[in-house]
């Protein structure tokens, strides 16, 4: 085939061709291997997520000032149906479940899913607290989170050490933001954009000159370049000394084009209020994020086949943390004017109206009536104190219970109800009125609202005399110098002990054997009485029937004897028919009566009845008798 001399000439092309082919095969195998590795990796991580359940608890801030709130999040991975407590009991803290969100993400080809339960932590006092282990019930059993330490500083505590400085911990992306966590197409190339263009924040507020106690809405928006996947790791750390910040509800997501770049916008709304007058600088509000940046593609992976298999995406990304900030903000806090401040002013700032209602306008004597005063409108509901009651003479009153029904997520608008418990000390036909004052920052004046007394009927217990107390009463020995009367009356001197007593059983009458025996005896008596009466009636009725039979026999004999005159014969016939039960309106009775009257009051009544007529009469009566007997 080939000469030796030719071998060297042909070997080289043959070898080079084979090596190239082998390399091509090796490269294709490598691509398939990498694709398989990605697929297996995804499946394994997914299975691992489903198989291994873990729970962790994290605080948004480990240290806050009094009046602020923190967020506690419980992350449950690998379990879909977890149950967590609605409230967590810690003395000095109110910890309530506010919602849950599900997070499914794939970062660096690793898919994981978790459910995040968010709690709001409201301090009721200052100090160091330990949030105990939180039980999480899943299909595979109950798991516990680790206890967490939490510090609440008083108002003189160091401000600004919270938030990111306090060690912000990861939180899930907010619900309704699917694009923020899921990886998406990352631009090719290795040159990342500048941070300012990639993500930035804005903060806006309607007013920068506000009154102490006035609630103002604040909007914080964070812009993220839509081309880069972003994971949100914290809530905005809005905090400043002298400012009270409400909790952040779920943020809203939108999209906007700006300077040729499409941005995903995350907008948080909250309320601010200042506790004291002066000047307040709010530092930039930071949001901790994690952004996937395009990374360098290793040599050999820039093959078009490989790119096509990955759908044009670049799997070689780098993740970096980015703190997105808003500009700082300055507030001038004005003091509430002392001039013209009403006595009933209790810290309400805003615009309000008031209404009152009595839930039970006719309470029982001695029972309380409940007067509900509703303050509705827009303002600082949490900080406002209760209205004062007017015309309350003759009433015993108690500090009211209050409840806020918000009509917006921020609790800026709504109705705060104050329930006053009132006990009449004398007969009352009207409830007390109420007076409520607030400061209107728009008109910069105090406004006083009042509600009029409402009609009701209430009386104290001294007006009542217990009517049944005489029953079973046992008077105290007269020798002891106590009330001789066996009657126990409601003591008109409230608070004095009752001097005589009645004996009552702990059991109801129905539960006592005496009652059941008595009832059975009465039943027996009724049945016996009925039986006796029925028997006697039966006897009487049987006696009268026999008498009736005897009379019928005698009448029939008289009629047959032919010894009676005509009128007497018809009399006897009439009685016979009546005894047989023939109705007075029957034709036979009418005929006998008519014939008897003719004979009695006319002619022929005293003579014997003709045999034909008597036979006909007897035949008629016989038929009646046989009909009755057969029926």
């Amino acid at each position, binding site marked *: 085939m080939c000469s030796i001399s030719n071998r060297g000439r042909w070997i080289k092309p043959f070898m080079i061709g084979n090596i190239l082919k082998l390399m091509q095969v090796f490269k294709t195998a490598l691509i398939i291997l990498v694709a398989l590795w990605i697929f297996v990796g995804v499946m394994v991580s997914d299975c691992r997520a489903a198989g291994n359940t873990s729970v962790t608890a994290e605080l948004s801030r480990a240290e806050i000032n009094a009046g602020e709130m923190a967020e506690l999040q419980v992350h449950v991975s690998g379990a879909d149906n977890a149950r*967590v*407590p*609605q*409230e967590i*009991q810690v003395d000095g803290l109110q910890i309530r479940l506010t919602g849950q969100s599900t997070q499914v993400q794939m970062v660096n080809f690793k898919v994981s899913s978790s459910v995040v339960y968010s709690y709001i932590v409201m301090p009721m006092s200052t100090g160091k607290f330990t949030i105990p282990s939180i*039980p999480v*019930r899943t299909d595979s059993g109950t798991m516990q989170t680790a206890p967490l330490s939490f510090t609440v500083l008083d108002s003189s505590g160091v401000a600004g050490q919270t938030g990111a400085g306090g060690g912000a911990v990861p939180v899930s992306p907010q619900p309704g933001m699917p694009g923020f966590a899921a990886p998406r197409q990352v631009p090719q190339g290795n040159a990342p954009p500048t941070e300012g263009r990639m993500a930035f924040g804005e903060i806006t507020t309607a007013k920068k000159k506000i009154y102490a106690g006035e609630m103002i809405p604040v909007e914080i928006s964070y812009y993220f370049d839509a081309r880069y996947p972003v994971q949100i790791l914290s809530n905005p750390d809005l905090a400043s000394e002298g400012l009270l910040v409400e909790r952040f509800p779920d943020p809203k997501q939108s999209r906007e084009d700006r300077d040729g770049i499409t941005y995903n916008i995350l907008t948080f709304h909250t309320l601010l209020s200042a506790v004291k007058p002066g000047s307040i600088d709010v530092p930039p509000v930071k949001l901790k994020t994690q952004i996937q940046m395009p990374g360098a593609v290793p040599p050999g992976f820039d093959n078009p086949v490989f790119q096509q298999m990955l759908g044009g995406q670049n799997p070689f990304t780098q993740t970096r943390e980015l703190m997105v900030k808003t500009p700082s903000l300055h507030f001038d806090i004005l003091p509430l004017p002392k001039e013209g401040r009403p006595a009933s002013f209790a810290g309400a700032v805003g615009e309000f109206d008031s209404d009152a209602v009595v839930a039970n306008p006719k*309470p*029982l004597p*001695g*029972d*309380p009536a409940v007067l509900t005063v509703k303050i509705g409108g827009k303002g600082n509901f949490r900080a406002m104190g209760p209205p004062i009651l007017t015309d309350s003479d003759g009433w*015993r009153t108690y500090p009211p*219970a209050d409840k806020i029904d918000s009509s917006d997520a921020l609790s800026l608008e709504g109705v705060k109800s104050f329930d006053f418990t009132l*006990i009449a000390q004398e007969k009352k036909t009207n409830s007390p009125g109420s007076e409520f004052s607030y400061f209107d920052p728009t008109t910069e004046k105090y406004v006083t609202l009042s509600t009029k007394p409402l009609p009701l009927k209430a009386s104290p*217990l001294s007006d*009542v005399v*217990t*009517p*049944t*107390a005489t*029953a*079973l009463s*046992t*008077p*105290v*020995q007269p020798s*002891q110098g*106590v009330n001789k009367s066996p009657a*126990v009356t*409601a*003591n008109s001197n409230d*608070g*004095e*002990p*009752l*001097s005589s*007593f*009645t*004996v*009552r*059983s*702990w059991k*109801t*009458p*129905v*539960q*006592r054997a*005496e*009652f059941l025996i*008595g009832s059975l005896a*009465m039943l027996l*008596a*009724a049945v016996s*009485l*009925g039986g006796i*009466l029925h028997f006697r*009636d039966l006897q*009487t*009725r049987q006696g009268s029937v026999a008498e009736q039979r005897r009379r019928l026999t005698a009448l029939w004999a008289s009629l047959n004897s032919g010894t009676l005159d005509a009128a007497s014969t018809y009399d006897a016939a009439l009685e016979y028919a009546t005894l047989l039960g023939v109705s007075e309106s029957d034709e036979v009775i009418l005929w006998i009566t008519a014939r008897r009257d003719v004979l009695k009051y006319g002619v022929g009544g005293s003579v014997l009845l003709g045999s034909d007529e008597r036979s006909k009469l007897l035949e008629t009566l016989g038929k009646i008798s046989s009909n009755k007997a057969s029926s």
Partner: protein
Amino acid sequence: MKRRFYHLLLIIGISFQGALHASIPNELNSANQSLSAGHPAEALTAYQSVLSSPDFSNVSAPEIWYNRGLAEEKSGDSLAASLSYRRALLLDPTLTPARTHLTSVLTLLGISEATPWSGPLFIRFHPDLLVLGGAVLGWLGALALVVLVFSGRYRKNKRPGLIGLALAALIFGHALSLLGAWADPRRLAGDQAIVSGKGEQTLRDTPADSAQAEGTLAPGSLITILSRNGAWWKISSGPKTGWIPSTAITTLLPPAAGS
């Protein structure tokens, strides 16, 4: 007539309850004098002594429970006072002072309880009166009806008005008796208790300290016992249901009454 009726009830009551020990009124007077003189602790000891006497095992006296509640209230123990007032009202729902003081101490304890539907009824009539009076009326109606239906003399006269009247008395009387028995607060008292532990008590979803908290109950809250599991009792209070240690609650009926 009314007096005779009460006398009849008195006779029935005394025959039901038996004679009380003669020394009780003396002890009661002594306790009342201590309470009026501003010595609630002494009075409380005396009331406790009276109420724990053997004479008061199956029966009791609402007025003495009320007085005991006053002594406890004046001693500053609102929680114990609320239980005494509840027991007084259990025995006699017409005892208005007890209801007023119960409302007052519950307000201090931060508890708001709705007045039961039977409240307006029992402010005038004791359940015993409804049950016994209703039963007497009902059985009189029943006897009259028997006479009118089974006696030939009345049957011949055919007086539907009288029969209707007797029937109405039969139905109304027994309905009244049933109503009194059904609405009697003692009927359900065997399964009722109050939260007597110090501070708010946590309801758990299972009988264990580490179980999930289902809510809290304020001291003095009225609860219904659903089941018992050793030292843990399952209870309900309004919409809340859960397990609570039995040491944190006190039954509405005194232990002697329960036995």
